[in-house]
């Protein structure tokens, strides 16, 4: 029962519906990229304040990403401050709209192993 309750709470809280949706990202969601990932780009349907971006690898370890700027904009580019080894990564993001309604979500991408020349 306790697990069921926790699962329901988790499901509710982890799916904050978008006021101002995320429209595009770089790397794209579910993409497999071969070039080094130097920045994470998030583009929204309107001006928002991006408040958090957390990049984690497949083991759940955090990777350093530049802090979100304290400004309102439609598009944000945050530098990835460490090299990403081949593997799967998840970007969790959170933003705030004009009425301070919080929108959040996540997307995944994969860094492919470099092929020897």
């Amino acid at each position, binding site marked *: 029962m306790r697990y069921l309750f926790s699962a329901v709470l988790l499901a509710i809280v982890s799916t904050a519906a978008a006021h101002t949706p995320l429209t595009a990202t770089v790397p794209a969601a579910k993409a497999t990229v071969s070039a080094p990932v130097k920045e994470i780009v998030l583009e929204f349907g*309107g001006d*928002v304040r991006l408040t958090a971006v957390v990049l984690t690898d497949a083991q759940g370890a955090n990777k350093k990403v530049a802090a979100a700027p304290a400004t309102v904009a439609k598009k944000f580019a945050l530098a990835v401050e460490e090299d990403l080894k081949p593997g799967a990564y998840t970007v969790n993001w959170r933003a705030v709209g004009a009425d*301070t*309604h*919080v929108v959040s979500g996540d997307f995944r991408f994969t860094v492919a192993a470099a092929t020897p020349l």
Partner: protein
Amino acid sequence: MFLAADLAVISLRALTFVALFMAVGTWIFVALWERDLAPEQAERIRNVARAAAVVALIVTVIHYVLSPARMAGSFGSTFDPSLEALLLQSSSGPASIARVVGLALLALSLDRATKLNTIGAGIGATLALASFAFGGHTSIHPLWFVLGPLLLVHVAAAAFWFGALWPLFAAAGEGPPQRAGLLLEQFTRLAIRIVPLVLLAGVGMSVVFVRSVSELATPYGAMLIAKTVGFGGCMALAGVNKGRFAPAVGAGNERATWAFRRIVAAEWALIVVILVTTAVMTSLYAPEHLEGAFGAGHSAEPTH
């Protein structure tokens, strides 16, 4: 990710809703029927309203302080000056100020029944209820001038109902049955006019917020349906009490009084569930078509 801050802030919001509705509604009850209550009953009801107002006030302040944590998904951002400034400059700023001032005025005006206190409590209760319309989805909607009054009617009627339940529960179990019967009769006479306003105003707002049937299939729409079903359940319980048990309470029937009080308690619990659902719904979800981006007037500096 971000779960702890979400749970803490949304729980505080839900608690604010319950305490605020209890404070305002219980005050409305005592203001309307003070003369029909025994002095010690009126005093006890006023104390409950004041305690609820104090709880709502404290929780509102804690909720406001922790809001930046939820905005960034981390308690480490609680005192982030830029998020605090954003919060204060948004519609949440004036809404929270109105709520705090209203609840403080209400709490301070509930120590004893005087004309001045009644006026003070009335202004406080109005401010506390109006705070719902000052912030959130209503405040940024292009039809805010339609939604604002509808929301005010919706929350005022809901507070009237919710706040009356505990006093009715208490009144039915003590004192002469004739007095309880008279009180129930008077309350019912007013309630059948006021309580339907909860549904009418709610439907009016839903027509503005949810523009198509397909939007009812979204999480926002589903929670709206859940609230409506909950309201229907409350109405059914109230109908059973009105038709079957309330007249027998006035006649001093102990079994009927027992049943009446249990049903009132069930109504109270169901309304708490509806209020918590509302807090979750308005925190996590938004109407599909509602544009929540910052307007042109906001400084949108390039980030790169």
